[in-house]
């Protein structure tokens, strides 16, 4: 694996990165190759246009939100470290190892994944999904023939089911309670094997 080592040496602070995110050296190298292939102009940073060039991502109904999530801290470029840190959320969780409760929540736990998804809804970052934000997401996910009234009805129903404290918005705690077990485990396995 000579090429692995040579690539690893190109990345600054790679040890710390691996420790923080839990990726193996092989994974880091794969991600670096991918980063470089996306970074067409070789600036060492990715901009939204670079993400937009990925065809299938552009066809994704929430593609622009996902891209937005990479640029969450208000910057308009993303370097390799932030790239890897965000992707670390989707590394499959090691369920067999008993977790040491004193350590902070691992980056790729189920909770972190859910928090990430929550942030996709909650664009104004007030910690709640308001009805308008929910409607917005619904619009992107639904096809064009659904009328506005139908969308509102669906949004109402969604809030009604999850909203426990009756504030007409979904907080993260309420979001967590929605049973989503199957999806996460299935998709963990998919993202894991590369």
């Amino acid at each position, binding site marked *: 694996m000579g090429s692995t080592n040579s690539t690893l040496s190109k990345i600054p602070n790679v040890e710390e990165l691996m420790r923080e995110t839990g990726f193996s050296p092989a994974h880091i190298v794969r991600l670096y190759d991918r980063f470089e292939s996306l970074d067409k102009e070789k600036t060492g940073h990715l901009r939204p*246009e670079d993400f*937009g060039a990925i065809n299938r991502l552009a066809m994704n109904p929430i593609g622009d939100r996902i891209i937005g999530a990479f640029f969450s801290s208000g910057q308009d470029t993303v370097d390799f470290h932030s790239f890897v840190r965000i992707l670390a959320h989707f590394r499959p969780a090691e369920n067999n190892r008993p977790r040491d409760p004193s350590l902070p929540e691992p980056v790729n736990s189920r909770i972190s994944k859910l928090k990430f998804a929550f942030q*996709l809804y909650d664009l104004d970052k007030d910690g709640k999904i308001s009805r308008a934000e929910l409607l917005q997401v619904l*619009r992107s996910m639904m096809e*064009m023939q659904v009328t506005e009234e139908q969308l509102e*009805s669906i949004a109402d129903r*969604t809030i*009604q089911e999850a909203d426990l404290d009756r504030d007409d918005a979904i907080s993260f705690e309420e979001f967590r309670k929605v049973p989503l077990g199957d999806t996460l485990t299935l998709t963990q396995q998919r993202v894991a094997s590369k």
Partner: protein
Amino acid sequence: VPSLSPFPFPFSPSMVATWMDGEKASGLGSNSSKGGLSLDVPMALRVFSVDYYHVQAPFEIVLWIMLASLAKLGFHWSGRLPAVVPESCLLIMVGLLVGGVIYGVRHSAPPTLSADAFFLFLLPPIVLDAGYFLPGKLFFENLGTILWYAVLGTLWNVLGIGVCLYGVCLLASGSLGDVSLLHCLLFSSLIAAVDPVAVLSVFQEIHVNEQLHILVFGESLLNDAVTVVLYKLFESFLRLPVVTGVDVLLGGCRVLGVGLGGLGVGLFFGLVAALTSRFTSRAQVIAPLFVFLYSYLSYLTSEMLHLSGIMAIVTCAVTMKQYVEANLSERSNTSIQYFLKMWSSVSETLIFIFLGVSTIQDVHMWSWAFVCSTLLLCLLWRATGVILLTAVVNKVRRNVVTFRDQFIIAYGGLRGAICFSLVFLIDDFPKKRLFITTTIVVILFTVFVQGMTIKPLVELLEVKRRKRNLPTVSEEIHSRLLDHLLAGIEDVVGYWGQHYWKDKFEQFNQRYLCRFLIREERQARSSIVRVYQELERRDERADEEHITHVDVRCQTRPHLLEEMDSIRRILTRNLHSFNNKQIPAYSRHTLHGTPAAEGRKPLRRHQSLGGKHSPWSQVTPTVHSITHSSIQPYS
């Protein structure tokens, strides 16, 4: 042979026929019909006469089909019975009854299912139906595993059962001494094969998860290649005076040849069918006919060339499906689907009824040793085969085949009418009757015992079933969001490996095949045109289905049941189809409601119309400005 009268209707005054003098009457009929209206003088003019022999053949066929369909109807109306007994069992019982009645009336064996009729007329519709509605993505994702089970599993079963049976015959050489090793191998090659018809009909009743369903079903389809070759191989070995090692090697090559040959024939006809459908815009009414004709032609061609007909027809269906669906109108597509369902249903019902009828035979040869050992060996070898193969394949697969799944795969290996027909085709030899009896016993055992107990056993083992409880609305939406999110992340990361070839194929498909095979107007062109086409298509569809208008008055009102239903309907129809979402499994009795999602790309809303803002930006500028303030406009 009933003569064909020149008169258009069966009751013609010149024909005098009675029930008893069948032949004399038809002879009389032909005589007088040659002379036109001339009557024989001593016969009085009959106002009403019955001429059964004139219409005998089609009449009896229709009666059988009618019986089959009424039995099926009756079955579904019979209260709790469908829950306990699978349909196939009941149909066989009806067949047994009818066979018994015919035997009692005629005191001779009732008509048996002729192998030709089965292979040429009854089997193709079922396999075509299965192939057309095959969940493509799931099938190809699991193709390696399916092939592994089909080829290696069948070989394991055949050799194991054959050799062990020979051992049994040697042990019981008093009664079974004249059954040679080759005969045993021949028998095991036809009894080891899992039958798609039986599997389908039983798995309909139990709802296991899609992956398991596709594994068992795919295996039953693909092992036809191996079965056909082995059967023909052993048959030709039996005719040879001496079998050498070279012959065995050639046999091995033939397996490959038959499978690939069937594949090739199917591909060829599939592509030609797709091309033909491109030009059917001006004669839309006959467009569905081409689908059936080409598929059937592929089946017949490969049967003619001694290739695997089942593989040919399945490949043909899978190949032409996406292009044909793009080329034909909605109505033609619906007709194709309905006709396929109808024909395959009728075929399946007929097969099971005839299985029952054919059981009533004049001469059955019975041998406890042979029959019992066959049953035991079938179960044993299948179980060990599945366990061993799964142990190997689990190391390579992502979604592991659990122990419970293995049990279902092993236990769900039902035998059906294919074995039955094949056993009739064996060259005659002293113990042929024994083979026939044993085959019937094995089929009845697997269909009845295994078919009826599989459902309670599934419940006992709590196999991961398809989610029967309707998910709540939030669950659906949130899980769909997560699906999209994860698909997006996969795209960011550049998901290589298993999907690499799929992506390559998709590119090839888009660039060359679609352009060649899909009609000009239906190809995805500029975005505006695409949007317009999509709207047009939806208008077409909206004429047929009425989307219930949900009427919202105030937010906190509890939702009525009808509204929940309509909400669910809206969700299932309209949520963007997610790339890897598991499609509802193939269902024999219903057409699932999703429009052909795989062929049509989802409406591209982000790239189209300039690409900077999604179409909704005109509707809610405020919310979108939040989104776009932090992102520079990208193309």
